[in-house]
């Protein structure tokens, strides 16, 4: 468990989430449990126990685990982006390229029985169910800023666990220099993967350098806003790397591999001059087609773009700049 203290350069927000809202959030979460238990029609409760009453199947266990998540100091002073914005404005090209496509088409996406394949340069390999992965872990809530490469940003209360805690269990070998992540490839469920108009070579792949993956800031999320991760946000398991552009935070992960060479990653393959492997948030290195010096904090209004200056490493510089000492970040963007 990492005790995080506020660093001097952390953002001081102009607005603070009111205490009443914060308390209501806990109330809302308790309510969610009750209603989840009451929803006997929900497919997640389809498994019946001997006495005919619905048994707690895994998603319900997950919900319980999410409710038990501990709070952390991360982002406590940030103003959260509303739930509607977080869940209805997504880049998840597997469900379509429009921002509302994921929330529109991911509703029926099946995540039960989810398995993750672990392989590569590590001692412990094989297929692990989501329950296997989560069982020994305590979940925590972390409020992180998310900066998209498209120059908009949000503040999201994730629920998850440090990726390092998971990776250690597979005993990576010293030859493991990078970690490669893969999203599910399932064209039947994902209209974006069926589309002939997409230029992406599915499945979506991302990667981190080993030290980035093991960094205490790097989170694996299974929930947000006190709930199980909505499908459009990358259910049931997604990465959150808050100092990198959003596309690094790969969704709906089905495979994690420890590799020796820098893995190829989807956006870097598609347009290497626009999207680097590192993709650290950097206001001084522009995207070839637009400036990265500022960002639009969403939601914004018609007559107020809510434009704020972008911070180096998305404001997490004091935590992560050490990872890149001596590196030319203009070259390794």
């Amino acid at each position, binding site marked *: 468990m990492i005790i995080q203290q506020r660093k001097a350069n952390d953002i001081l927000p102009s607005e603070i989430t009111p205490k009443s809202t914060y308390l209501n959030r806990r109330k809302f979460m308790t309510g969610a449990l009750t209603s989840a238990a009451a929803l006997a029609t929900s497919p997640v409760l389809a498994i019946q126990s001997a006495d005919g009453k619905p048994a707690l199947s895994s998603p319900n266990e997950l919900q319980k685990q999410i409710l038990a998540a501990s709070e952390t100091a991360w982002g406590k002073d940030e103003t959260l*982006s*509303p739930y*509607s*914005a977080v869940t*209805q*404005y997504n880049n998840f*090209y597997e469900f*379509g*390229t*429009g*921002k*509302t496509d994921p929330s529109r088409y991911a509703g029926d996406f099946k995540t039960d029985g989810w398995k993750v394949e672990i392989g590569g340069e590590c001692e412990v390999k094989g297929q692990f169910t989501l329950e296997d992965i989560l069982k020994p872990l305590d979940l925590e809530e972390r409020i992180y800023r998310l900066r998209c490469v498209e120059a*908009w940003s*949000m503040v999201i209360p994730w629920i998850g666990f440090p990726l390092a805690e998971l990776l250690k269990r597979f005993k990576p070998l010293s030859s493991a220099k990078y970690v490669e992540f893969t999203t599910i490839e399932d064209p039947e469920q994902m209209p974006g993967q069926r*589309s002939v*108009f*997409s*230029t*992406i070579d599915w499945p979506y792949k991302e990667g981190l350098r080993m030290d980035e993956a093991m960094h205490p800031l790097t989170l694996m999320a299974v929930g947000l806003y006190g709930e199980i991760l909505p499908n459009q946000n990358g259910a049931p398991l997604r990465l959150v790397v808050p100092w990198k552009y959003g596309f690094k935070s790969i969704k709906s992960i089905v495979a994690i591999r420890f590799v020796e060479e820098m893995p190829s990653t989807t956006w870097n393959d*598609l347009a290497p001059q626009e999207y680097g492997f590192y993709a650290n948030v950097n206001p001084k290195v*522009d995207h*070839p*087609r*637009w*400036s990265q010096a500022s960002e*639009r904090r*969403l*939601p*914004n*209004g*018609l*007559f*107020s*773009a809510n*434009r704020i200056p972008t911070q180096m490493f998305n404001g997490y510089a004091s935590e992560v700049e050490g990872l890149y000492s001596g590196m030319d970040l203009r070259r390794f963007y």
Partner: protein
Amino acid sequence: MSILSAISNKITSVPVFWRRFIITGLSALPALYILQLVVRIQTGERDLLGPEPGKALVWLTGTWAFNFLLIALVVTPLYRLLNQRWVLVHRRMLGLWAFLYTSLHALAYATFLLQWQWADITSEIVKRPYLLLGTGAWTILLALALTSTRWAQKSLGKRWKALHKLVYFAALLASVHYLLQIRAGWFEPVLYTVLTILVLLVRNRRFEGFWKKSDKI
């Protein structure tokens, strides 16, 4: 051909005033739709167009600008195909609507995205060449709108036709303006570009033989 001329006769039986009235009404519909979106967002329905309503409106106005540009461009080929003068009567008005929607698009960009921060525009234009192309297309349409009167037509004489041929250049600029914004989904920009090229080919007299002959059979 008989069906076409029958339809054509039906349409021409409607007085030109009413035809203009109907076209104006239909052309104004998207603008009214966009206007009510703005009003609803400003009066509390903040989620109506998602968390970035300004951007959504810039895209919506841009799409309609391109739609009307294509509609206006298709008038002349349609006239040649039908050999009916009544089509031409409405060309000026449709062109002006294309100019109006392009202006709305530019206005939406300046208001919602640029927020009238003109200090940012130089760096924006350097970073985003598509802005320059869009501005170029709008400037051409402005010149054409200003010289769309009968008086301008008469006083410019032969030069009027040469000037107004620039509309094809504006359409090409608009296509590239759109294409430059592709990230991964290329369907719509490519569709509009293909339509633009088709209209330009059909319009070109050298290619006219292909479709005109085959159509008469």
